[in-house]
């Protein structure tokens, strides 16, 4: 039996570990040069940094995961630098692009561990050079050891905002300010639900406290107004304080992000149905706690199956691999299965509390000014999108895919991965409908751009 595992983050590593233990040699692909995924992303080989400095409190886990990863490579058909750009669930084939070469790979079962990406809300000026996502700023720090500017403002909400602020501090790149769109009172109200998270919760509190103790200006309950600047330069961030006062902070770079969204395009192409999860405020592929989807032979684990974080990803990866083994008639250790199920159920409760503590600011997205670009690839403004929800010559677009057809929103390079969530809010508001009612952007291959030259031989 040929099992394909896409992704070598925490979920992929723990999945392959189980498959190898069961005597299989899985096909293992990751588009990155090495495994580790997002949280445990490794710097390039020539840039060695101490794990303790790179991963902080997570250094032990990172080291453990990397050790497992490296040990497993020889027992799998390990293919780094390999983008999976399409999956055909009927013929059970993956289309891949590897170092400029295209190939088709067969599988009997596939385990998709594709992780997550930042969720952004457009702020006027967000397309200026010098503005990145929180995740991108973190990757620059982790893999290249550099900050995105000298005076960096971090804006958004969620654990990554505070983690990044703390990591910047520790790296000697003191942030100019941290702006959280969630009010302090809101977070305090939801804190009791987070106690179930144990160490993760206490680490989160520690990060927040450390950032404040270091004297980094912190503003909570803010509404960003604009990222100002001239030409290619960011010069400041204008915002409204929780009390409604207009303020401007001088800065030369901004990192922003409002939680994460699953990178679930392969699951979509595989035909897995999606549902809207109100707590995560994301469309999630359907799967059971063990990662089985309604599509035979397709399994999901990790943040690509719904945001859960690294601890969940490791367990979900192992659990999905066990489900796959069980479904194909192989014996699996039932005590391990039971322990994983119990842990996953417990962690799911914590995740819900976390999402409620740092909610996606749908109202901010709905209020993006008309002139602001929402879709960068196709240069579609919020006003264009609202017009599609009005009465253009083509009639009202009552669904997101219809607005895509009319305006080209989400038709560019990123295929709506960046603009999708905010675009949906803007259209839903224009139509006076619930965001869940207008659908989600349909996925189409390739998952990421594939160059024409590669096929020209």
């Amino acid at each position: 039996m040929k099992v394909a595992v896409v992704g070598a983050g925490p979920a992929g590593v723990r999945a392959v570990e189980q498959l190898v233990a069961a005597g299989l040699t899985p096909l293992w692909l990751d588009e990155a040069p090495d495994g580790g995924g997002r949280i445990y992303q490794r710097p390039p080989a020539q840039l060695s940094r101490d794990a303790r400095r790179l991963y902080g409190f997570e250094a032990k886990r990172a080291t453990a995961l990397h050790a497992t990863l490296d040990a497993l490579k020889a027992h799998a058909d390990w293919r780094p630098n390999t983008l999976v750009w399409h999956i055909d669930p009927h013929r059970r084939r993956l289309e891949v692009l590897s170092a400029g070469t295209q190939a088709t790979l067969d599988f009997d079962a596939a385990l998709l561990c594709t992780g997550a990406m930042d969720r952004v809300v457009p702020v006027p000026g967000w397309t200026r050079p010098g503005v990145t996502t929180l995740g991108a700023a973190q990757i620059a720090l982790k893999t290249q050891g550099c900050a995105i500017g000298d005076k960096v403002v971090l804006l958004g909400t969620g654990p990554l905002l505070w983690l990044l602020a703390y990591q910047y501090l520790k790296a000697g790149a003191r942030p100019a300010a941290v702006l959280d769109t969630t009010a302090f009172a809101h977070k305090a109200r939801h804190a009791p639900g987070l106690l179930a998270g144990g160490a993760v919760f206490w680490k989160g509190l520690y990060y927040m406290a450390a950032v404040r103790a270091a004297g980094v200006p912190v503003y909570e309950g803010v509404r960003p107004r604009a990222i100002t600047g001239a030409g290619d330069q960011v010069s400041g961030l204008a915002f409204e304080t929780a009390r409604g006062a207009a303020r401007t902070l001088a800065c030369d770079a901004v990192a922003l992000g409002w939680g994460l969204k699953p990178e679930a395009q392969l699951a979509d192409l595989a035909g897995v149905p999606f549902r809207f999860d109100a707590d995560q405020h994301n469309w999630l592929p359907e799967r059971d706690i063990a990662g089985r989807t309604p599509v035979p032979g397709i399994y999901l684990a990790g943040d690509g199956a719904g945001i859960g974080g690294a601890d969940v990803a490791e367990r979900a990866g192992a659990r999905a691999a066990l489900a796959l083994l069980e479904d194909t008639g192989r014996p699996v250790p039932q005590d391990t299965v039971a322990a994983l199920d119990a842990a996953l159920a417990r962690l799911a409760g914590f995740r819900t509390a976390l999402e409620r503590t740092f909610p996606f600011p749908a109202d901010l997205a709905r209020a993006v000014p008309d002139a602001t670009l929402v879709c960068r690839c196709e240069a579609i403004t919020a006003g264009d999108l609202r017009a599609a929800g009005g009465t253009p010559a083509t009639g009202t677009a009552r669904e997101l895919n219809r607005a895509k057809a009319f305006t080209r929103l989400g038709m560019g390079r990123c295929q709506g991965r960046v603009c999708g969530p905010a675009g949906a809010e803007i259209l839903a508001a224009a139509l006076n409908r619930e965001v869940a009612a207008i659908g989600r952007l349909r996925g189409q291959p390739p998952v990421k751009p594939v160059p024409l030259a590669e096929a020209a031989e």
Partner: protein
Amino acid sequence: MSVTDTEVLIIGAGGAGTSAALHLAQRGVPCVLLERGLVGGQASGVNYGGVRQQGRHPAELPIARRSMALWHRLVEIAGTDAEFTVSGHLKLARTPEEEAELVAYLDVARAYDLPLRLVGRNALHVDYPWLGPKVIAGSLAPEDGAANPRLLVPALARAARAAGAVIEEHAKVTELAFDGTLFQVAAGERRWRAAWLLNTAGFWGGTVAAAFDEAVPVQPLSPNMMVTEPIRYFIEPNLGVVGGNVYLRQIPRGNVIIGGGHGVSDPAVPWSRPAAEETRAAMALATALVPSLAGACVIRSWSGIDGEMPDHIPVIGPSRTTPRLIHAFGFSGHGFQLGPGVGAILSELVLDGATDVPLAPFDIGRWTARAA
């Protein structure tokens, strides 16, 4: 259960059906257009966007000519030009045999007043220096062009509604009958009755025809499509080749749209998807035609479902079994350009009992009479 009465019922809101609704409504005829999904959601909304006359079967040219006149009046008719541009259509030959085919078509074009100009090898590579060395001749139809398929039918539908047509979306017709006087049609719990029925259901037109004992050998056709990221604008004409194994066009914003080969589909869902191996083959053919496309990234690929007839021309005209039933389906992969014109023709068949383009080659009897 309530029944709605109307004069003309139309099944299928692609280009043909929606244009029919518009033309009927403009002449004051009550009509109801029933669409399973959203208007223009199938072939008419996802095609390559070629608005081409060159290379068509001679029988189609009179319809194509009529349709072209409507394309030029689109702003007036539908409030948008649906990005229709007259870019010219350049059909290319890569072998002497292919060149001979281009030459042969010049006579056809002349007979139907279609402007067409042969471009020899030297002139071709001067006028279009970006063409690959394998191209040896071309024929340019200066009146042809392209449009954005996602806009055409929704705009026609809005105009039809404004003119008084009733258009029901999410109305999948599940029952069809003729009681000798009226057609009775049901979509779920809703029912309609009408004196006339127009079958413009695209590939699924075969199912509608079969309900009136006129089964035809229509097959699903799913062209494989892809589009690149925007690159510098340099390919003005819509490009095709003899044989049709690849075609491509660039829009002024820079994206290059490429077609070639066939995807996979399940019309019962309906569902379609490009086939990766066909996408790769079309990529290679495209870069052979225009070598500087190499390196451009494909950002999206897709397919759709049209009805393909064995002789590659549609069924258009009155039923052989049922009075006041008129078919127009099975456009075999080239009905986007024809849509506006076909709707006008259907309205004339209903209201005037005749039209000025010859429809004999499209008679459904060419299949059913033989079978009977």
